[in-house]
């Protein structure tokens, strides 16, 4: 067994998980909302990026703004439609509505892009590195770098900037935030748009690792769910640690036991953590 290779695989996978989950972490932390269409937005953005590079022949870099525009547009439309439910914090209806949105996105994507799998190749995914007995691609390096940069900027923004203080006020008490002159609706719209943009970046960076299908998305939702719950609801640092831990766990469990049982094992760990440490990894007051 090549443990070094498994460690690299886990490291890349963990950063990919954290990157996919970051938008939902912010959504859950600030708006107290879940979005079960998260995986389908990921899928849609991956197809937009694939279309831009493979069909239109545009540079890979162009696929970032293209996918982000799609992610922001979907997030914005979803929030406009769900605004009343959001303000009422009607969580059950929101869960069902976002699940419905996911299926609508999936159906629309299948109509537009077809139901056959596609290979989303990029200049970075073709550039391989062999070092001693380990192998990785430049795409993997890009995933790790982008994740670290995004999490660092986000954590700094939330903790240290004016915008961060506003969003923390809304997160803690949206009613009281109105008395601080904050337009809570705009903050919710911005958070949904951020979620769309963040999952788009994740799709453009992570989707090239595997073939893409319009039926994908469910696994991304499950992974995201595990990461945000393990990390502690709304904790930016917690999500990063949880994503990384889940990635390493998946890689080593898959190699040492069996890949088929990885998801079941991850959920067993999730249950154990929730029982022993109900707030997740970041179970400390005020942690972001």
């Amino acid at each position, binding site marked *: 067994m090549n443990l070094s290779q498994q460690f690299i695989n886990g490291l890349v996978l963990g950063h990919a998980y954290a990157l996919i989950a970051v938008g939902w972490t912010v959504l859950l932390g600030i708006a107290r909302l879940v979005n079960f269409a998260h995986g389908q937005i990921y899928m849609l953005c991956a197809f937009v990026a694939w279309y831009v590079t493979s069909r239109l022949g545009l540079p890979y870099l162009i696929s970032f703004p293209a996918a982000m525009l799609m992610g922001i547009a979907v997030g914005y439309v979803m929030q406009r439609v769900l605004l009343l439910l959001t303000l009422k914090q009607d969580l059950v209806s929101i869960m069902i509505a976002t699940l419905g949105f996911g299926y609508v996105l999936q159906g629309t994507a299948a109509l537009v892009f077809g139901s056959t799998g596609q290979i989303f190749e990029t200049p970075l995914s073709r550039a391989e590195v062999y070092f001693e007995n380990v192998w990785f691609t430049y795409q993997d390096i890009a995933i790790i770098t982008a994740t670290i940069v995004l999490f660092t900027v986000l954590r700094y923004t939330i903790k240290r900037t004016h915008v961060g203080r506003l969003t923390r006020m809304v997160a*803690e*008490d949206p009613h009281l935030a*109105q008395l*601080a*002159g*904050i337009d*809570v609706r705009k903050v919710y719209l911005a958070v949904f748009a951020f979620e769309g943009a963040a999952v788009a970046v994740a799709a453009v960076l992570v989707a090239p690792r595997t073939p893409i299908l319009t039926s994908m998305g469910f696994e991304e939702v499950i992974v995201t769910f595990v990461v945000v719950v393990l990390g502690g609801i709304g904790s930016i640092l917690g999500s990063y640690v949880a994503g990384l831990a889940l990635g390493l766990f998946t890689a080593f469990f898959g190699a040492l036991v069996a890949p088929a049982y990885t998801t079941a094992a991850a959920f067993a760990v999730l249950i154990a953590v929730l029982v022993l440490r109900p707030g997740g990894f970041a179970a400390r007051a*005020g942690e972001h």
Partner: protein
Amino acid sequence: MSGHPSLEARELNVGYAGNNALTLSLLAVGEGELVGVVGANGAGKSTLVNSLLGWSRGSPRVSGTVWLGGSRISNLPTHERVRAGLLLVPEGKLVFGRMTVEENLTGMRTTPRNDDRRTYSIADVYDLFPRLAERRYHLGAQLSGGERQMLGIARALRFGPRVLLLDEPSIGLAPRLVSSVLRTVRSLVDAGLSVLLVEQNVRAAIEVVDRLILLERGRVVAEGAAAAMRDDPRIAEAYLGAQAG
């Protein structure tokens, strides 16, 4: 002086689930005036201040017109009324518990405006409430009731209020702190601020207000200068009775 009252409300009606909670034909707070609103539990005092801002944790039906400095604000959402200068320090949860005192005081836009509103700087509010300066790095949740009340008022001052609405600032405070908080409010009014003070502690309120309004079951039943209202039998018997006896 603009000639308008700082705050004016006409034909204000508020109802919850078909039940009328407040009926008010006219309310006015003049520039540099401290108006007290007193009454028993459930008289409609908090409903009054909340409806002036269009703010509520429930879903009331509100009608009527509210003007701030002569401009109609009742068509605006809550956050815009706040930006226009109508600031409320609510009853109960009034600070952000997971943020430090300093963050509570810097978490809002306090950019200079082209009007005569005085925006208090951080240094100004620390001068006014030195205790907050000592506790600046503590979380809101770690503060005592009195400190939270100070922080609530300080946060409102940072926004540059035209009119400050205070909802039961004395609740849960020791008597010494009550008079300290109310004395500070009085000093702000003497410096030109207009304040509408909702209080259940009539004895403490009547010492500092210029004018007093008595609410019962959502209606104004007595109104007048503080000195005159002190002798009003409805106030003396129901609220100052122990003192009279």
